[in-house]
């Protein structure tokens, strides 16, 4: 095994200049059509199973709900009832009689505002708790109790404080999503390796530089875990909060549809809520992946 290999090495090594182009010409890569075929196969392997499952579920749903007197509409009826809403998401007849796009965008705006505030405050508090033993001793028990309060339990209190639906909904988003951000950031900061702190000490970084150059990059994977849990929770909370505060928003759209017995519209709205929740989660995960690139130890 060894002998021929060494022999070959010597042979190719000697006339290096002449041998090189010959070696380069050997077609190592498979033809392009083959590459595409392989890519298509890989895509199919991922896409076909969920499609099959969805088709089966729709079929079962259709069969179960098609008979007369069924409480819920079958998928075919859902589609028929909501065709206008699906095809024209941008109509605006004033008041809350708007297309789904407007409802969703109103909800997303609330989430964006509440979530941004909670990300800023959560990371700041997390850094404080992670860095200072006394802050942790003082604040951690408080956080552990407060984080168990269900989102909607905050709503009456915030309505009393703000006397308006909009800021109350944003506050509920904020208070729901802040806890995982605080807790994960604190864990991340506490877990910064002593080595990095030693490096910072030898280089004599001041606290601000330490924060920006060592702490945030080192804790970034933890912070993004918290941010990702946070965005999921805020999307959960907004739908519930909007049902109660009313106005434009996907939550109230669902509640309104229930009050008008438009069950098909509820199902359509749930579909959109699910998809957007999924996209939001992937969005934060994607940002995290880009930002924490190279942060993994070693």
């Amino acid at each position, binding site marked *: 095994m060894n002998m021929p290999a060494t022999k070959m090495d010597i042979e190719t090594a000697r006339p290096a200049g002449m041998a090189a182009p010959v070696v380069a010409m050997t077609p190592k890569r498979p033809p392009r059509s083959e590459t595409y075929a392989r890519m298509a196969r890989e895509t199919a392997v991922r896409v076909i199973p969920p499609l099959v499952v969805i088709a089966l579920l729709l079929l079962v749903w259709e069969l179960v709900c098609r008979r007369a007197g069924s409480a819920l509409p079958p998928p075919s009826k859902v589609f028929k009832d909501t065709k206008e809403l699906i095809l024209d998401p941008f109509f605006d007849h004033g008041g809350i009689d708007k297309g789904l796009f407007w409802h969703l965008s109103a909800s997303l705006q609330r989430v964006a505002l509440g979530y941004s505030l909670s990300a800023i405050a959560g990371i700041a508090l997390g850094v404080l708790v992670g860095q200072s033993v006394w802050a942790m001793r003082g604040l951690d028990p408080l956080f552990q109790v407060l984080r168990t309060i269900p989102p909607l339990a905050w709503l009456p209190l915030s309505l009393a404080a703000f006397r308006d639906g909009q800021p109350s909904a944003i506050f509920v988003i904020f208070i729901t999503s802040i806890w995982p951000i605080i807790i994960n950031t604190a864990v991340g900061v506490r877990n910064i390796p002593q080595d990095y702190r030693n490096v910072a000490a030898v*280089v004599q970084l001041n606290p601000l530089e330490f924060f920006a150059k060592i702490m945030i990059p080192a804790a*970034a994977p933890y912070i993004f875990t918290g941010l990702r849990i946070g965005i999921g929770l805020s999307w959960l909370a907004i739908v519930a909060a909007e049902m109660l505060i009313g106005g434009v928003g996907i939550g109230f759209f669902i509640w309104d549809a229930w009050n008008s017995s438009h069950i098909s519209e509820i199902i359509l709205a749930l579909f959109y809520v699910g998809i957007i929740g999924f996209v939001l989660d992937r969005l934060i995960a994607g940002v995290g992946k880009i930002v924490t690139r190279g942060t993994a130890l070693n």
Partner: protein
Amino acid sequence: MTAYLKLDHIDKIFTRGAASTEVLKDINLTIEKGEYVSIIGHSGCGKSTLLNIIAGLTVATTGGVLLENREVNSPGPDRAVVFQNHSLLPWLTVYENVRLGVDKVFAKTKKRAERDAWVMHNLNLVQMAHAKDKRPSEISGGMKQRVGIARALAMEPKVLLLDEPFGALDALTRAHLQDSVMALHQKLGNTILMITHDVDEAVLLSDRIVMMTNGPSARIGEVLEVPLARPRKRLELATNATYLKCRQRVLEFLYERHRFVEAA
């Protein structure tokens, strides 16, 4: 000649609740400018604690460290450390890792372009300029340690502290890196204090070897001069009588008089 770096009656007692352990006892040592001194001892004898005290990362219980007759008790770039596990920041490139220290130390004395040139100069010294845009995860262990050395050198330290710098490397890489450090010492004339547990490494590199007794209450047991001319060549020294005698002395100290006692 007055001492360049002076360790003056250093004691270190770690207290944890009611229990306290004396790790270092009455450490006195003076190091002259340009000298290469190794501290050798069994693991757990407190040599890393001693290095941390000199670096300012740990505070001595009593006694102190004098650098050019001035007491130093907090970390600073004048005592740059090459850490055992390289401690490069994984989210920065090789260049940025070195630049981090350079930007801090020469913030006022060097312009941007000069700092850039200085970083590249130091990467060239350790032959790592070719990998300047790589991240630490993309280079080998020996290369990481080279970058660690470049980062320390780039701060122009008065004393370079090496904390078992080659401990985590394979034998061939270690030998290669030892030669590099010797060449750098020859070229730049740094004052170097190195922690090691490798007898050959200590004899090959050092002007003096400080041998520590076993802890607790580790002391300096013996200081051995290594009267070998520089530049030293690894292969020639293998049969050199002085080299072998020094090696013998250290081995005797470590394995006869101060044998490492395993916890029963």
